[in-house]
Every structure is written in C-alpha cells, then in structure tokens.
C-alpha cells in the first residue's frame, strides 16, 4: 500500500498545481462564490476555455476529440488538486461527464469529430434529457416519441428535471420509438440541437426557491438520423452507459456538508462556550467524520481498481447515497443547534452566511436527483450483492398496454 505518484504523475500534479495557482482562487482565500445568473455562466465558460487551451480539459479523452490523450489517473490527479480551488466546472459536468462517454461509445467518427472538441472546450454546453413527469425512478417508462421522417426524426413530448437546459446547445435525449414492444426494447437514444424552434425550456421553481432544473417541451423538434446514438430500439443500453458515467462523475463531487460542519465546529461559540466542547456535537462530529473519511478512502480504493484496469462499478452509488443523506442530517442538526435563531437564514446573522438554512431546504433534492436513495439501494442490492429483482407488473407487456393509473 502506498499513496505515492509515479514520477510522471508527480510531474503532472506539479504542473496542475502551478497552473491552478495562476488561474484559480484557493478555497481558503475565498469562502463563498456568488452563484447567480448569466454573469456566472459567462465566467465559467471563459474559465473552462482557458483550462482547455492549457491542455487540462478532458484529460483522458483522445486528442482528436479535444481531449489531452492522457489516462483516467490524470483525471484523478486533476480532481484531487482542483478540489482546493473554487471553480465553476458545474455547468459542464453533465456534458463532459455523462454525455461525452456515451457519444464516444455510440456515435460515428464524423459526428464525434464535429461535436466533441466543442464540448471539451465548453464552447458548447450539453444537458441530459431522460426523466419525464411520469417516468422518474422508472425512467424506461418514458413517453417522449421519436418518429422517422425521411432522414430525420421528429420529437414530441416533455422532459423534466433537466439541469442546465437553459444554457445548453445540445442534449442527449432518450425517446420511445416503438410503443408496441416491451418498455426497455422500444427506446432509442439521440443527440439533439437544443437551439431550434421545436424545443422550449421552462425553468422549474424548486421548493427552496432556486431554479436549477427545467422542463423541456418538444414540439416537432428535428433530429438528423446521424445524431442517433446506437441502434434503433437499443436506447436502454446507451442510457445505462450515461447513467453509470453520471454516478462516476458525481461520486467525487457529491456534497456531504461535512467540511462546512467541521468549519462550524472549529469556530462557533454558543452561550459563551465553544461548541467543540459539547459532547453531543463531538459525538455527531465523530460519526459523520467516520463516514466522510470512509467515503474518501473508498474513493481511493476505487481509483486503485481503475488504475489496475478494472471498471468502477455500481459501488459508485455508495457515495451518492451516503453523501446525500449526511448532507440533510448535518443541515438539520446545525439549525437545531442554533436554537430558535436556527430558522433565520439572514447571511449576516446566521453562521456560515446561512449555509445550513439553505442546505435544509435544498438537501431533499439531492436525495432525489441522479437516482433516489431508494434506487441507489436497489442498485447496490441487485447489482453488487446479487439479490433478486422485485417482481414487476409490467414485465413482458407491450409498452402501450402497461397500466398508468388514474390520470
């Protein structure tokens, strides 16, 4: 066992560090980042373009697709270093992390060379269009139709919970092309140009008041057949590739709330005493730290497995599940700890500028997005532990015959 870099990776790490020092702000120097609107988005694009120009974007992608032609271990080194800085990579994670791998796997050479370099430099922003109002955890139950129209496909229907659709130039969309076969076999995956008249994006106002997600409506939107990803009727396979990449992409950056909690315990006094001396606070600190440290160590084990040529499997669901739950529990604990003042979210009055009050309201969404807690548990139970599936009432049925309940 060792945590040493190879000489080549050590050299790469040093280059990353010096570039980040020159081009990004250390977390310790800037506690918060204002996360608002168009201005933040423009800044993010400029930052990512600079990163791509310096050769640090999409490190493990082939250079003909805009990558650096390096390995997934270089990705890991980048992720470890960039964690110490405040950056705005969030807008591009879905495209580069989720869509990119599926496009590389399923698309034609011409299309890859046309679209991927612009994705890799953040000139184009991408979103992922899977969930629908009636297809959440049961995403294969989706109803957005794709119908052939000469060399094109015509898309009609509605997607929901699409992060970043308002900024996106393209999307990867999962559609139903055949309602007469069983639900998993009638799906087809496409790329879609989001900047066309048949696509309408409407923001969703979330329970916390924010507007991170969108509804997307398709009315006779057009997709050329060359933008199809994989076979007609083979969309589920492609979708699984995207979803697995998604879990990997978020497993390293899943918020846990722990670093903010540790900062709070180190700094806050209540009733004239440091909360760090309070036995209840110490007990919670130790329990959450042991989970947080466990996630970090589990991540190192996963990296080791990948470095040895293995694939990161469904174990990535673990980070999502643990982080999302901890995030909510920490937020609630802290608001309770503050006493009656815990409901006040004024950034000048509340510790950490109201972070915990905001987290109380936002954290329920984290437990749902990208696969609910329950879906994560099913994945672990079925794919890791090999337990049998729950019997399904729609098994073997043609999609059009599946009961949908009163509507």
């Amino acid at each position, binding site marked *: *066992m*060792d*945590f*040493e*870099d190879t000489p080549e990776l050590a050299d790469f790490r040093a280059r990353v560090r010096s570039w980040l020092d020159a081009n990004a702000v250390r977390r310790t120097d800037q506690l918060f980042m204002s996360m608002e609107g168009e201005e933040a988005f423009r800044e993010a694009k400029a930052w990512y373009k600079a990163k791509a120009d310096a050769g640090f974007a999409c490190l493990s992608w082939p250079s003909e697709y805009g990558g650096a032609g390096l390995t997934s271990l270089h990705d890991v080194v980048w992720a470890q270093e960039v964690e110490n800085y405040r950056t705005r990579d969030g807008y591009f994670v879905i495209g580069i992390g989720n869509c990119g791998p599926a496009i590389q796997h399923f698309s034609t050479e011409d299309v890859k060379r046309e679209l991927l370099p612009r994705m890799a430099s953040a000139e184009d922003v991408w979103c992922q269009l899977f969930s629908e109002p009636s297809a959440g955890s049961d995403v294969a139950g989706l109803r957005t139709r794709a119908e052939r129209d000469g060399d094109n496909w015509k898309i009609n229907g509605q997607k929901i919970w699409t992060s970043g659709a308002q900024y996106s130039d393209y999307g990867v969309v999962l559609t139903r092309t055949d309602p007469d076969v069983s639900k998993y076999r009638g799906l087809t995956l496409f790329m879609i140009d989001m900047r066309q008249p048949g696509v309408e994006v409407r923001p969703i106002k979330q329970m916390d008041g924010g507007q991170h997600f969108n509804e997307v409506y398709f009315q006779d939107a057009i997709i050329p057949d060359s933008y199809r990803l994989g076979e007609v009727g083979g969309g589920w396979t492609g979708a699984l590739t995207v979803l697995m990449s998604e879990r990997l992409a978020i497993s390293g950056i899943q918020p846990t709330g722990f670093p903010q909690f*540790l900062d709070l*315990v*180190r700094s806050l006094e209540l009733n004239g005493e440091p909360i*760090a*001396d309070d*036995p209840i606070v*110490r*007990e919670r*600190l*130790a*329990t959450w*730290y*042991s*989970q947080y*440290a*466990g*996630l*970090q*160590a*589990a991540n*190192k*084990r996963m*990296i*080791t*497995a990948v*470095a*040895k040529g293995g694939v990161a499997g469904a*174990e990535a669901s*673990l980070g999502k*599940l*643990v982080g999302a739950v901890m995030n909510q529990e920490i937020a609630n604990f802290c608001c309770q700890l503050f006493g009656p003042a815990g409901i006040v979210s004024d950034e000048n009055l509340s510790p950490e500028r109201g972070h915990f009050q905001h987290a109380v309201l936002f954290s329920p969404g984290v437990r749902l997005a990208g696969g609910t807690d*329950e879906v*994560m*548990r*099913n994945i*672990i*139970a*079925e794919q*890791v*532990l*090999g*337990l*049998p*599936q*729950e*019997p399904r009432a729609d098994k073997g049925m043609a999609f059009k015959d599946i009961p949908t309940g009163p509507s």
Partner: protein
Amino acid sequence: MNFEFSEEQQFIRDQARNFLAQECTTQTVRAVLDTEAAFDGDLWQKIVELGWTAMAIPEEHGGLGLGYLELCVIAEELGRALAPVPFSSSVYLATEAIKRWGSAEQQQQYLPGLASGELIGTLAHWDGLGGVSNGKHSGDNDGVRASDGKLSGCKWPVADGDSAHFAVTSARDESGELRLYILDLEQASVTRQVLPSVDPSRSQARLDFEGASAAALGDGTVGESELAQLLDSAAILLAFEQIGGCQAAMDSGIAYTRERYAFGRPVASFQAIKHKFADMFVALELARSNAYYGAWALSSDAPDLPLAAATARVSASDAFYLISKENIQAHGGMGFTWEFDCHLYYRRAQLLSAQVGTAPHWKDLVAQRLLHAA
C-alpha cells in the same frame, strides 16, 4: 497510488481463509461458547504452527519479521471465523507492548515464547464501569496502585485473564503517574475469577492483586502516551476482525433470504429486505475503507495514525453492530434461536466493540484528534 493489499498479502489472506473454513467452523465456536473452556486449544496450536503468532515479531526473537499489513489480513480472517482463541490479547496487545517498549532482557524473555505460542499474554487496563462520561475518560486506573514493584488492586474485565500467563498491566505509581508493568499471572498473590459475559466464546476475567510482583515495562517511563499508541494499533487490528465478522454475518443473511420464500417469492426480493442489505453493505464498505486507511497509517507510521485508528475503530464498531442486529432481523424468528448462528455474530460484535474501549470513548478521540489536527 496503490491502496490495496499486495498479491503476497492477499495470498496470505486466502490461505488463512481456507484454513479457518476447515478448522474453525461455527461448531468450533459453539464448542467454546457452550462449555467452560477458555479457548480452543487445538485451534490455537494449529494457528501457532502456521506462524501467525510469530508474524510481526522480529526474526532475532523467533518471529517471522513480517509487517502489520500481513497481520491485518490475518485479523480479518480470524474475525470472519469468530475464532475462539486469545489471539488479539496475546498478539495485538501483549506482544506489541513488549516488542515496542520492553527492555532487551524482557524482549528476550517474552518474545520467543509469544512467537511459539507457549506464552499467552494480555493487557489488563480497565477497572470496572466507565468509558466516557461528561467528556471525561474514566477507567483511569485508580483501581491498581504500584509500590516497590508490587501491585495491589483490581482489574476487570481482562480478556483472556483466566488463561494468559502474564499481563501487561497499567497502574498508578507512588507519584500518581500511570505506568505499564509486566505481571506474572500465575503467582499466588493474583486471584483470577472468570466473569460471565455476552460472548462466552471468548473469556473474560477479574484479576485481584495483593502485592503481586511486577516489573516495570522497559525503562519504567512507559505510560499514558505509549498506552494510547498501543490501543491505537490494536484498534486497527480489531477493526479488521470486525469487518471480517461483518462480511460473514451479511453473507449468511443474504444466503438465507435468497433461499427462504414468503408470499411465493424469495424474501431477498422484497425491497424492505434488499434495502436493509444495501445499508449493511454501505456500512461495511465505509468501515473496510477506513480500516484499510488505518492499515496503511499503521504500516507506514503516518502522522495521522491516531486519527486514522480512532476513525477505523468507530466505523467498524458501528458497522458490526448494525450488520449483526439487522442480520437477526432479516432471518426472522429463526434468527432469534440458539440453533442459528446469528447470535454468534451479534455477541462477537458486542465483545469486539468493548475491547480496547467502547464507541463513546473512540468517538471522543476522533473529535479530539480531528479538532487538534491542523
């Protein structure tokens, strides 16, 4: 970076697993649980012959001169098999204390016998009720006093205290300092009393000393900080026993619920059961990952070893409790019978979380060490 045991270490693990699958079934564990036996002498002898007691002892003292990583993989297998032997007391505690701080003469006197299994040692530290209360760590050993090389007072519980030949014992000297001593347990001024416990597959004793002769460990200055280091390394090794037990308990529950049918289908196909196992898996993976990090910290004497040890300990104790109790639940009524093995894991989870200090003690250490870290 390579955060995995080496092929050689994994080979040792496979060998140990195969050996224990043959030689230490749950029937072996029950044979100790159901009788007055302190431990399984035959199994102990075979373990000694395989060299496990000698593993981390230097060659000049009759050992194999291997490292802590090898000991960690053995510990995991002993935990998986619920081995009813005094391995943790003798190897993680007594051997380590003498190896690290014993005088040259003490090392010469004890290490070869510990390596060959002729000598069994233990640690006598706690003295009655108490872990952490109101932020204070008790078990502060007002129970035993040392004066002129004689110890007086009482220690309980002492794991393997009824069968060990000697104990590394903590006591307060005349100036009130905590010091470690080596104490022959076979002398007349030591009274040993076997104590009933929640896990009779491992023995616990009360030791009363009435002017018992003891030699200071090493140069006589070995005290609080060395004891903390000893407990830290034992915590990591015990965490491996705990994750081994977790895996075995979880595996048994998965096998049972896959085969048992209710409402016309396997019990394991119900989400209420599947989600239980998913939560067990999560707890185990976190505990395993923390234990691995602890193993690395121990083997490389990393600066964050104390925090890593406490973290591994907290994580493993929480996981084994969760898994052993939910394994009973997943088994339903059969899980509550004497006949099924579920209670063996549940008992062992209780025992292992008590050895070298319970969860509140180690959680407070995590907080202390985390907050004092830069």
